[in-house]
């Protein structure tokens, strides 16, 4: 059961071969054994989890039969879950018990999933290594000396070590795809507006998007069916008819045109990543797809544009943490202003403070046009490049990350170096496109490599099928790290 896919778990639950309580217990025991090593979870609450599992079993006994009923999963600690501590990886929210459910959490509850716990993450989702978490770094199950990626690093380590068969994540600049690549499983960031942001603690609102993380594309399609949908409580949620994201999984690859951006295959990618990505493309050609070179001439500007837009929006979003209504309040202060300044200085970690300060400066009088407005114009150029590229192809492919998992501490001292580890993923967020990372091999250090797939706007179903067909022909997504067997 530990290594089973969601479809297999779902079938076993339906056939009453296993109960939701048995399944939850199996994973809870595994978390108890392995989490002290990995630090993938910030909060585990056996009683709450088992209560949800009992409820799922009761619903099934009463005749209910949803695909995810009784399936256990973990939530990134950015999603508010009523009655659960929801920290966002920050001291600021160290003792925050969410008084309501995020839409995503509510939808999964309705589907009958069982919450295994809340996963560690970079503080306020700001990081690419999970090292900015107030609750400590997460270890990569493939090599405990290395990072799992970030910001959804706890979700990633949990899936790779099978502490959970699936997890939720969020992706503002690559935070689902990069950890999926570094930990060797499948992660999907939907088109902006497909998954509700309500109750998902905001970082950069015009870029944030929740999405599924699991072993395979088929599992991600099942999860996305539960997660996606219009939500009137999120002002940027898109009013579109509901979709079945599994509907195209069986579609063969013959005739598929894969666009390869020349900008993604230049210098900067490690040899191990390049070799695995090239081999995956050869496999796709073997399976009947054709490849065509495309250009994304402005994609090189995506990291600088992102590091204007994201901090600017973050500085505005995080102004809500004032030590008045919730969150950390300093013990001693001289007056109201001093209380704000001290509470925020104590509650936020170094990277979060850095981004708030950068964003505050960029939005301040006299600098707004030069930074924020200019970055938004460049953002349009980047999005237009993709629209043009999709005239010649159905899906774009390339590396998800320039390197495999790096060592803990290796990039922690140099913010700009850390920012560059998202060089292939950020343009997708700026354009609002759906993107995935799927495992496609290992480098010489036996660390997983991720292949990035980028679909056209709202093309999740097609992209999932393109990933699934590859996973039918390969077994990279079924490999497990030995250290956490």
């Amino acid at each position: 059961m530990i290594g089973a896919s969601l479809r297999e778990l779902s079938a076993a639950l339906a056939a009453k071969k296993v109960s939701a309580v048995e399944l939850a217990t199996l994973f809870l025991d595994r978390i108890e054994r392995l989490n002290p090593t990995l630090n993938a979870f910030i909060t585990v609450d056996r009683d709450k989890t088992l209560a949800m599992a009992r409820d799922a079993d009761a619903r099934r006994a009463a005749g209910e039969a949803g695909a995810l009923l009784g399936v256990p999963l973990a939530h990134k600690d950015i999603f508010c879950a009523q009655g659960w501590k929801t920290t966002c990886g920050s001291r600021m929210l160290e003792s925050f018990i969410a008084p309501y459910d995020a839409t995503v959490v509510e939808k999964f509850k309705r589907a009958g999933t069982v919450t295994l716990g809340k996963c560690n993450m970079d503080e306020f989702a700001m990081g690419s290594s999970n090292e900015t978490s107030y609750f400590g770094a997460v270890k990569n199950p493939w090599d405990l000396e290395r990072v799992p990626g970030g910001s959804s690093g706890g979700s990633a380590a949990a899936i790779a070590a099978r502490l959970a068969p699936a997890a939720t994540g969020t992706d503002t600049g690559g935070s689902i795809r990069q950890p999926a690549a570094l930990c060797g499983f499948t992660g999907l960031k939907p088109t902006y507006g497909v998954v509700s942001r309500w109750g998902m603690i905001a970082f950069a609102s015009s870029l944030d998007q929740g999405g599924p993380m699991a072993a395979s594309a088929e599992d991600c399609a099942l999860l996305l069916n539960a997660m996606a949908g219009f939500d009137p409580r999120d002002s940027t949620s898109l009013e579109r008819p509901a979709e079945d994201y599994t509907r195209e999984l069986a579609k063969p690859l013959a005739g598929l045109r894969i666009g390869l951006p020349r900008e993604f295959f230049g210098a900067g990618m490690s040899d191990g990543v390049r070799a695995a990505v090239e081999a995956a493309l050869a496999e796709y050609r073997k399976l009947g797809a054709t490849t065509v070179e495309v250009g994304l001439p402005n994609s090189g500007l995506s990291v600088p544009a992102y590091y204007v837009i994201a901090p600017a929006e973050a500085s505005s979003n995080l102004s809500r943490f004032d030590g008045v209504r919730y969150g950390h309040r300093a013990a001693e202060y001289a007056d109201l202003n001093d209380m704000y300044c001290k509470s925020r200085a104590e509650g936020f970690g170094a990277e979060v403070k850095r981004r708030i300060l950068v964003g505050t400066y960029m939005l301040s009088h006299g600098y707004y046009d030069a930074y924020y407005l200019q970055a938004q114009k460049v953002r349009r150029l980047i999005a237009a490049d993709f629209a043009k590229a999709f005239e010649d192809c159905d899906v774009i492919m390339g590396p998800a990350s320039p390197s495999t998992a790096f060592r803990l501490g290796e990039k922690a001292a140099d913010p700009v170096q850390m920012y560059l580890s998202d060089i292939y993923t950020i343009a997708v967020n700026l354009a609002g496109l759906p993107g995935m990372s799927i495992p496609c091999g290992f480098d010489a250090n036996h660390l997983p490599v991720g292949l990035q797939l980028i679909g056209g706007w709202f093309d999740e179903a097609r992209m999932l099928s393109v990933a699934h067909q590859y996973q039918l022909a390969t077994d990279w997504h079924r490999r497990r790290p030995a250290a956490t067997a």
Partner: protein
Amino acid sequence: MSLSPDDVRRIARLARIEVSDAEVERTRLQLNDILGFVEQLQSIDTKGIEPMSHAVDVVQRLREDRVTESDRHADFQAIAPETEDSLYLVPKVIE
């Protein structure tokens, strides 16, 4: 352009984040690194390009003006640092 120590103090004041004198220099260097990195955007010709504020062009939806939430102030205030009689307490502002 490069930030001075006074710029850092001004930005920190605007952001309501206390930065100690010992932290100012390190913060200044890091912010200048980041600003130096994004500087390359300035040389891009964006004349006539409409700024893109959201990934998908949508108009602001308006909801019907009716009550949709129940009164849960006790739940919401249970997580506040300090309350009294349903009010949030802050240090005295007016003498």
